[in-house]
Structures are given as C-alpha cells and as structure tokens.
C-alpha cells in the first residue's frame, strides 16, 4: 500500500478508501456490520498512499475488545476478477436495460391507448356539458330575466296607483314581491357569472400576487381590521380572475370578523413548495414549484367538519350575512382553472385559515 508502519495507526478507515467507497462504507457497510455483526464478500475500492485505486473484496466482522466495539476488516485485491465481473455486470445491465426499455415501451403504449380512449370519452362529455351550459346561460340571461323584469314592471305599476288603492296588507305584499324579485335577480346574475366564469378565453400572464394583494388590502382596510402581509411570489395566471379569487377571500375575512372590541388581524403569507402537478391520474408524478398562499384570520370561524362544503355553490353557513354564498365557490373554480387547489381549516371562535396552491409557471 506504500504506507510506512507508523503512518496509519490512529487514523480512521476513511483514509484507506476511495471517496466513493467512503460513502459506501458510511451508508452501507457500517450500518450493516453494526446491526448484523458481519458483512462478507463486498466490493470496495481502497487507495494506496500514492492515491492509486485498488479494487478489493472485503469481509468485516464486529467484535468486542476490552469493552469496546471494534470492526475488523480484511481486504483481498481483485484486479482481474473485478474486470471480468464488471464485464458480466455490464452485459447483464445492457440486457436488463433492453428488456426494461421494451417492457416500459409496451406499458407506455398500452397506457397511451387507454388514455386516448378515455380522453376521447371525456372530451365528448365535456363538449356535451359545455352545450348544456350554453343553453343554461341563455335560459338564465333571457328566459328567466324576462318574466322577472315583467314582475318588476307590474309591481311598479301597482306602487304608482292612487294612494289608498290597496289595503295595507296589499302594500306590504307589494313590498315583499319587490324585495323577493330583486333577490332573485341578484341570484340569477351571480349564477350566470359563476357558470361563465372560466368559459371565456382568458389571457395568461405573469402576475405578481404581492401587488394584487396590496391593492386589495388598501380596499379592505377598515377600522378594527389589520392586514399583515409577508412577501408573495409571482405566478403565471389570469390577472383578473386571480384578483377576484383573493378579493373573495379578503372579503370573507372582513365579513366574518368578530364584532367585539378585539382587533381583527388577517395574516397573509406565501412560500414556494414542490407539488405534484398531476391532479387526477393516481400514478403520474411531476413535482413542480407551486406558490402556497395562506390567509388566516382570527374571526368567528366555523365548524371544521364543514371545511369542504363551504366551497359548494350557494352554500351559506351564516344565513343572515350579506352575499349569495358564491364567493368561495368562485374562488375554488378560479384556483382549479389555474391547475391549483384551495382548502380551508377553521375553529369556531378562533378563526379560519385558507390555503391556496397555484403553479408558479
């Protein structure tokens, strides 16, 4: 090995090993010998004092010596044998690779065919659904609005009658008709908004969430409410709809605050996490960077069991608050349209945390 007798005592085993064999020793041989007591016929590469590599076969055994655990290792140089085995291994590897590639190709081909059939089916279904939605939208915009408009006109005519033309019961019924038809008109227009939200072609650009959030905070800052914003990332998306997404979230945080003397604090923070971009295919993985934005408040909160249903359309947990129960449904729709996700966690009396995941690119 080229060492003199007094050069090695006191040194660690690493000094004798090649760099790669040091890693191998620390990650494989040492744990194995410690747990199993011995290891046999393992390859490694040692190096001479002049840093010449020597392929060796090693046996190792752990023994107790004067109260200490000692590992004894014996090396046998195997220059020729290593070369032959390497040839065998290379040949084996080449054969395996070819086989694996062949197998992989066959599997991929099968998967592709399956996906094509599935995709075609999904596409037809989506087209059908799209047609239905278009019909629905027409029904809403025209067929439903028209009778509503007429109800309003007739209610207006009645209201303009000579004073005393109706009984007091008649006037209060008239006011009721007017209020109900206004509510219905708002509902119809919100529903239309929800269903047409993402069917228009939208422009994708790089959107700085920090700027969007600063603008929204300026709009929502009011007495008793503080916003605490730490830096948010830039994502690729549709500026208008992302603004709408976060507007709904801030709106909720302010709307569902505690109406007591305590200051309402809304914390908004963002970080970048690795997340699988495949959403529906269970065996596909591609980890890409996502912005994770959390908006947490100390508001009235809700029962955490309802954390999923709050995103359903027209779902209102608090019947007497303003709004139609569309805000979170719209937010979810926008997040998913961006290939993102939204989730909520809450505790009654403590507050709510909304987490939004949006792909960075």
């Amino acid at each position, binding site marked *: 090995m080229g060492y003199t007798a007094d050069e090695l005592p006191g040194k660690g085993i690493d000094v004798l090993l090649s760099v790669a064999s040091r890693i191998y020793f620390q990650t494989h041989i040492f744990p194995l010998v410690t747990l199993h007591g011995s290891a046999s016929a393992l390859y490694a590469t040692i190096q001479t004092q002049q840093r010449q590599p020597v392929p060796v076969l090693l046996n190792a055994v752990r023994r107790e010596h004067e109260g200490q655990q000692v590992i004894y290792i014996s090396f046998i140089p195997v220059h020729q044998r290593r070369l032959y085995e390497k040839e065998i291994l290379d040949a084996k590897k080449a054969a395996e690779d070819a086989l694996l590639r062949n197998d992989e190709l066959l599997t991929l081909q099968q998967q592709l065919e399956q996906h094509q059939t599935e995709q075609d089916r999904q596409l037809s279904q989506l087209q059908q659904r799209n047609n239905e939605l278009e019909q629905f939208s027409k029904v809403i915009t025209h067929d439903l609005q028209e009778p509503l408009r007429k109800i309003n006109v007739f209610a207006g005519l009645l209201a303009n009658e000579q004073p005393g033309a109706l009984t007091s019961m008649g006037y209060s019924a008239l006011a009721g008709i007017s209020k109900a038809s206004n509510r219905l008109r708002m509902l119809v227009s919100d529903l239309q908004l929800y269903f047409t939200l993402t069917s228009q072609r939208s422009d994708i650009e790089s959107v700085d969430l920090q700027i969007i959030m600063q603008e929204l905070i300026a709009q929502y800052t009011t007495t008793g409410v503080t916003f605490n914003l730490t830096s948010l990332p830039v994502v690729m998306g549709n500026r208008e709809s992302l603004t709408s997404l976060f507007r709904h979230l801030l709106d909720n945080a302010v709307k569902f605050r505690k109406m007591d003397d305590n200051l309402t604090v809304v914390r908004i923070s963002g970080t970048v996490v690795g997340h699988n971009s495949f959403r*529906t295919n269970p065996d596909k993985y591609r980890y890409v960077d996502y912005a994770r934005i959390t908006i947490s408040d100390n508001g009235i909160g809700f029962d955490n069991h309802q954390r999923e249903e709050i995103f359903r359309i027209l779902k209102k947990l608090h019947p007497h608050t303003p709004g139609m129960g569309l805000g979170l449904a719209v937010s979810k729709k926008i997040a998913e349209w961006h290939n993102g996700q939204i989730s909520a966690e809450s505790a009654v009396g403590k507050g709510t945390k909304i987490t939004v995941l949006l792909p960075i690119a």
Partner: protein
Amino acid sequence: MLTTPPLATSQTIVDRYNVTVSGRGTQPMLFAHGFGCDQSMWRFVAPAFENDYRVICFDYIGHGRTRLNAYNRERYASLHGYAQDVLDICQALDLHNIVFVGHSVSSMIGMLAAIKEPDRFSNLVMVSPSPRYLNDDGYVGGFEREDVEELIETMDGNFFGWATSTAPAIMANGDRPELGAELGATFCHTDIEVALHFARVTFLGDNRQDLPKLQTPSLIIQTREDIIAPVAVGDYMAKHTPNSTLHVIDATGHCPHMSAPQETIDAINQYLHQPH
C-alpha cells in the same frame, strides 16, 4: 367523468411503509431512516423515547420489508415524492405536533414535508444532514460528480454480495422455528434498483434554496468528523436554516445514532427540554 385517485386507507399506508408504532406517550416522534439502510438503524435510539412519546418508525419503499410493487419511479425521481410518503403517513395516522427525526437525506425529506405542511410538525431533528453533496461554485459539499458515479458502480458491483449477505429469508417456516431468528437478523435490506435511483436523487440533489423556507424549529446533530456531511456543511445548514440549533456531538462518522447512540439521545433530549 374524471377519475379521482383512490383514497388510501390508514391500514394500506401502514402496510405500504411497514409502519411500526410503540411507546406510551401521546406526542408522536417519527423516525425516518437514511439512504442505505432501513428502520432497524434506529433500534439503539428510538426505544429511549418510548416512555414519553408515541414512537413511529417506517421503511421507504424498496427498503426493509416493504413491498416493491408500490414503487413508482416517477414519484421517487424527486425528494418531494419521499416527503409525500412522510405526509401520507402523518395523514393516515392523524399525526400532529410531531417531532420528526431524520437521518442524512431524510433530514431534507422531513424538511420538505414540514415546509409543505408546517402545522403538523413541532420540531425537526436532523441527524448528519447535508443540503448539497456536490461541490458547487464556492460551496463545499465534499464530492464531485465522478465520486457519485463511482459509488453507483460500487453499489451495482455489490449486488451479488448483497444477495448473499443481506437478502431477507422470506419463507414459510412454521415447522422450522429456528428460521425465525434468521428472519429477524436481516438488516438494511435494500432493493438494488431503488437504491441506485435513491443514490442519484440524494447525491445529485440540491436543497440549499429550501433551507430558508423552513419555519419549524430544528436541531442539527453534527459529528466531529463526517466525510459525508462535514462540519462545514453543518455550519452552512445552521447559518441558512431559520430557528435552527447546531449541536456538534462527541462522535465520529455519518451514523452517530448507531456509533454513539447515548450522545445522540442526550442531544435530542437536551434540545427538546430546552425552552423554545
């Protein structure tokens, strides 16, 4: 209709990752093994926490007694796939307020998991961590790309060796109870293809940009001499990880939880008992 991935039941996850639970405490302490071995590497350290914690150990797919059919090359082409394993286990066992203890590359895996779901974790204990093993433009990780290629060659060359020294004796042995002892004596079993892929993902990866994102308080356990994660790397970790505590313990090598278990246990206890 789009298909949604089937929800894995808690038992599926327990079987998939060979999850073992012990201990009399309530707060979970989750141990994750490093590259090259399996959960048996925690056997000198984990029992010390059974009085005060719910101790949970597991094997990554392709390690220990896990079944290979759950292996997915795409999922494990990134440490994020391994971090998802940790999060899947946390979800299946409904774990919260977790003390996560990871060795070597599992420190990075735990870190990615804690960045993704910070609310689940109370503390991270990183044993011999490194965010980057390769030297890179002024950063000293300790290794060159050629070293990693040679490591992979060494591992590949030892495939025959492994087959004789560490393959688990899986056989029906109801009539030969002495074989049960043999079964219990197999350690660090690793599937070669999984190990080679894991080696590349581990040693060619770079998690330096993730360190500042970690908000969970962490302990970095560093030994005096570790050729895989040298003291300078421990210093780098501590400098770039917020809320981290560096503890250089009186031990050498990359596996202090095996070579100096008491020092490792003391370091973890000291850290967990100090006020944060």
